[in-house]
């Protein structure tokens, strides 16, 4: 497998709708043969970015490179990409086989040839027994397999998937997720997958691109995203993190007169003052009704306790404004249960405080 085949690069890509900026100058390099997820809330520009790579949306400024070849002005088919649409967009008047063979028919390949090749693709997605079925008679998962086969038939170097799993029920979603990853690894081609579910992105991606407001907030592998979110938005969006705001002093992060948190790495102050933010993983906080070594001197108060199975979600707050969500392992909880109103002594390793950058400047 060549490393460079199917690499995608976006250079200063901008998309405007009239005066409205949908995507503001993003730079992104996706390695060939990797699985990349564009993650963000709806309206963050991730779908627009995908559609620009596919060629279904014109680029306002900037260039899109595929295999180091500038494809910015090429029509979709000549880019070497194939798109899988959110609702699959299967042609209702064609059977599964003819749907998969559609682009070959357009290319003028004889019926016998194109059907043979389409059948091969259906076999890859385990749908060969449904070759003669029409999309209306297929379930969501089956339609998706056919759509995937249709995207794969031209041996594209890059497959673009627009929220491919969002129309499926949760059980099927997990199964198709595994299937997607299997096919991607089997074929070794680049997958670019748009999603708003961090669970999906973490499960699939080699690299995750978190987007917000048309800007890229962070590019990293899933571990990097979760362990060291770069901005408050990323930490909030992926969940499982506390965002703590305070004033930067010599001693650390000052929350209030009485409380200063020690810092391992000193974050960059946010523009306009020495206010700054750090993130702290909910499952990296130790909580106990009694003081313990390395615990913060001032206890917080337990607000609510929710049992979640493998962990217990404890919400705590203190009068000085510090609020912490804590995921306590259920074994610890059972040993010394906390109840609303109890004092909660909390502690963590100083290196668990992850300094956050100010949000990306919006042009």
């Amino acid at each position, binding site marked *: 497998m060549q490393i460079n085949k199917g690499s995608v690069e976006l250079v200063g890509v901008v998309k405007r709708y009239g005066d409205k900026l949908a995507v503001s100058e993003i730079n992104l390099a996706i390695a060939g043969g990797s699985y990349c997820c564009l993650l963000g809330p709806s309206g963050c520009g991730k779908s627009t970015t995908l559609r620009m790579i*596919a060629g*279904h949306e014109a680029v306002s400024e900037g260039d899109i490179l595929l295999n180091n070849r500038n494809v910015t002005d090429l*029509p*979709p*088919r*000549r880019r070497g990409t*194939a*798109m899988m*649409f*959110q*609702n699959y*967009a*299967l*042609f*209702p*008047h064609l059977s599964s086989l003819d749907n998969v063979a*559609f*682009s070959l*028919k*357009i*290319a003028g390949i004889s019926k016998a040839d194109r059907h043979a090749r389409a059948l091969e693709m259906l076999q890859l997605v385990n749908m060969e027994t449904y070759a003669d079925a029409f999309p209306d008679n297929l379930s969501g998962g089956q339609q998706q397999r056919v759509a995937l086969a*249709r995207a794969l038939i*031209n041996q594209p170097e890059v497959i673009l998937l627009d929220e491919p799993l969002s129309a499926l029920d949760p059980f099927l979603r997990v199964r198709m997720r595994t299937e997607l990853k299997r096919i991607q690894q089997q074929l070794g081609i680049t997958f670019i997958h748009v999603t708003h579910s961090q669970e999906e992105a973490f499960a699939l991606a080699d690299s995750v691109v978190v987007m917000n407001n048309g800007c890229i907030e962070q590019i990293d592998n899933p571990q990097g995203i979760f362990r060291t979110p770069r901005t408050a938005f990323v930490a909030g969006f992926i969940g499982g993190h506390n965002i703590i705001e305070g004033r930067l002093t010599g001693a650390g992060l000052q929350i209030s007169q009485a409380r200063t948190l020690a810092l391992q790495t000193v974050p960059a102050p946010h523009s306009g003052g020495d206010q700054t933010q750090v993130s702290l993983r909910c499952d990296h906080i130790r909580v106990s009704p009694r003081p313990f070594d390395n615990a913060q001197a001032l206890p917080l108060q337990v607000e609510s306790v929710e049992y979640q199975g493998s962990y217990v979600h404890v919400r705590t707050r203190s009068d000085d404004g510090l609020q912490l969500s804590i995921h306590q392992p259920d074994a610890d909880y059972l040993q010394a249960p906390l109840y609303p109103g109890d004092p909660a002594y909390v502690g963590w390793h100083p290196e668990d405080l992850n300094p956050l950058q100010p949000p990306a400047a919006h042009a």
Partner: protein
Amino acid sequence: MRSLAHNPSYLQVTPLALVILLFLLFPVLTILVVSFWDFNAYQLIPDFIFENYQFLLTSDVTLKAYLKTFFYAFTTWAITLGLGFTLAYYLAFYIRSPLLQSVLFVLCTVPFLTSNIIRMISWMPLLGRNGMINSALQQLELIDAPIEWLLYSDFAVVLAFVHLYALFMVVPIFNSMMRIDRNLMEASMDAGASALQTVFQVVVPLCKSGIAIGSIFVVTLVMGDFITVRLMSGGLSASVGVLIHNEISLLQYPAAAAGAIVLLLTVLLMLSILFRFINIKKEL
């Protein structure tokens, strides 16, 4: 009565069944019966003879009228299909704003606020021997003598038909186009299809039902018409409808009835051929 008590749905369809029986089936049966009657210059004689049909089916005039009617129906169908599809395509896929879409759609129906006859007659000052087109062309010295075939010709008849019935093609096609998922067009482009290929490989197959419904409207309306042909051809052409109308004017009701029955069977035959190709029920 037993089945009625067991299945009250029979009761529910009774009103509609009665309406159809009274206003559709009964008149048609009457026509069928009358078509076997005898007649002379001043009276109808109840009878059971085949002379009306014999005369009708062996006459040269009938054959000519049918050929003419088929010609009108086919030409009008082809032109309204081309026009209707293009118009509907523009409305459905090029106009992005739903408001403008409905405004333009209503605009299409404005001619229907006037009666058929007025819409036909309004062509006359335009197309006549000394009408606007001829006088304008003559004043521009593009022609020496007025163009004769503008009015009272097959051209005029087809023009009027297209004008009258194009909308019957636009509406059902527009309707089925609006139901096409826009992602399908992109999926087609993604597969490398050009705009024209997308139209013929994706849009046309998915509009089949709309095209069929529009075709039924246009073909049946043109096949049964007599007033447009009479007015616009100036009495120079005769369609099947005109023949029937003439016979009614001469009080030859049995002959007219026989003509009507044959026309009805012809149209039903044409429709059954159409239904063989397209499953309308599936689309409704």
